[in-house]
């Protein structure tokens, strides 16, 4: 297969593909019917982005179904299991805030990702709004929801430093400035939600890193096993 593994479309496509897959696991399990629709909608947007991005890097199905774990370039954050609804919202908040800032930057350039980024940034603004609204409701809801949301934010915090490690091929992105803006946004929304910005490390100690180089966490292998098994069971078949 002809693949352009050096293109930044691959890591960004993998982020969208894997997060979409995780959100797809919510189907039939959401806490309220409106969230069945909303989570599926976000998953579909991300899958649409993944298909465009992976097609820039090669054949979308070969890339999704026939690569090994060590060949995926996604952030470790997006592969983390759904956990309870608060964990899913914390993951969405961290990731969609990052993705919106990154795509807004890419949309202004003239690189090959600019057209996709310009379209996707509008979708992602909705994903971020959805995550913020739920962060407010859960943070400023009941004692239980506050505790659960804080726990989720804390648990996923160590996966957020990786978001700002430079991506090969995205040389124009001002990563430190992106990190500052992300931090300001997250701080503001957590304050409004009466939640605390987690204090744990984002870098050093054990924090996420290496996803962009194909190093993943244990749950990722099982995610791929499930996602790929049918496609791989029928080599060469058309679906």
């Amino acid at each position, binding site marked *: 297969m002809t693949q352009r593994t050096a293109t930044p479309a691959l890591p960004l496509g993998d982020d969208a*593909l894997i997060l979409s*897959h995780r959100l*797809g*696991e919510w*189907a*039939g*399990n*959401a*806490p*309220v*019917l*409106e*969230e*069945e*629709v909303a989570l*599926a*909608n976000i*998953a*579909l947007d991300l*899958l*649409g982005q*993944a*298909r465009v991005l*992976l097609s820039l890097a090669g054949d*979308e*199905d070969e890339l*999704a*179904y026939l690569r090994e774990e060590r060949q995926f370039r996604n952030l470790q954050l997006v592969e983390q299991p759904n956990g*309870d*609804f608060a964990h899913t919202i914390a993951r969405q908040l961290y990731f969609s805030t990052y993705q919106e800032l990154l795509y807004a930057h890419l949309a202004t350039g003239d690189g090959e990702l600019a057209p996709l980024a310009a379209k996707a940034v509008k979708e992602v603004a909705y994903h971020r709004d959805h995550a913020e609204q739920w962060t*407010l*409701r*859960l943070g*400023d*809801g*009941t004692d*239980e*929801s506050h505790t*659960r949301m804080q726990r989720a934010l804390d648990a996923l915090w160590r996966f957020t430093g990786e978001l700002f490690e430079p991506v090969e091929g995205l040389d124009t992105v001002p990563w430190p400035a992106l990190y500052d803006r992300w931090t300001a946004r997250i701080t503001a929304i957590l304050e409004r939600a009466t939640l605390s910005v987690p204090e744990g490390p984002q870098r050093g100690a054990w924090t996420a890193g290496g996803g962009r180089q194909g190093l993943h966490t244990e749950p990722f292998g099982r995610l791929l096993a*499930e*996602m790929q*098994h*049918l*496609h791989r069971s*029928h080599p*060469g*078949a*058309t*679906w």
Partner: protein
Amino acid sequence: MTTIAPEETAREAVFDATVAADERIEPRDWMPDAYRSSLVRQIAQHAHSEIIGMQPEANWITRAPSLRRKAILMAKVQDEAGHGLYLYSAAETLGAGRDELLDKLHSGRQKYSSIFNYPTLTWADVGAIGWLVDGAAITNQVPLCRCSYGPYARAMIRVCKEESFHQRQGYELLLTLSRGTDAQHAMAQDAVNRWWWPSLMMFGPPDDESAHSAQSMAWKIKRHSNDELRQRFVDICVPQAEALGLTLPDPDLRWNEERGHWDFGPIDWAEFREVLKGNGPCNEERIGRRRRAHEEGAWVREAAAAHAARKARNAARTAGTGEATR
């Protein structure tokens, strides 16, 4: 007392005339209690079927064998959640709230379509559900677009448009498998073999045994009998199966020149009754998963309600302060 009776009669006459003229009954109109409760029962059962029906298909979202198929399947399951929303809203116009109806579903006091108590064992089942189960649902539902109750009829117009899209996608999925490798073809045939008879049962018991049919037809909630719709469905499917290159698992299936319809073999109504009673392959699992999702989501719904109440109080307080300073 003497003034009430003529009023009641007059309202009933208006209702009867509206139905007879094929016009729509709207939420603000007077309607007989039995008409209201019959509609609530039917719409609730339909809404429950949409949300329980998400499960057998969601079972394959994480394993869909291509990204295109995954997107189609996710969109379909999302549509079903959307149909659930319109239908619960339609029931709300009759005074039956969503929470109350969900309680009845979870406690087994209201039913959902028995078809969803069968398992989706292979990827081809996703195609068979689209072609046969959605096909049967459309055959049942198209006449409901002319149902006498306005909100239900209008919801059904939208639902049917989306369902027919799903049905074509299911057919196309099966066609791809049927024309694919031997293993794919066998997978498609096996799925059709398992889903054919349960799909025929979706039209409900034979006309002479159907509990609610006659009254529903008189009220124009229902337009055709179970057996008429079942025959219509068989007549549509036989040529489609041939075009798919698949067979239907019924040795008695043959064209009847005199009737102008396909004759088909006897349906195993004992199986239908068992599944309806709760003894199908997935009854426990489907309702169990629904209850679990609801229970595990309780803290989320409580948080949303608490947050909304706090916001409303703050808004009222701000408004109150504004009033006082003026």
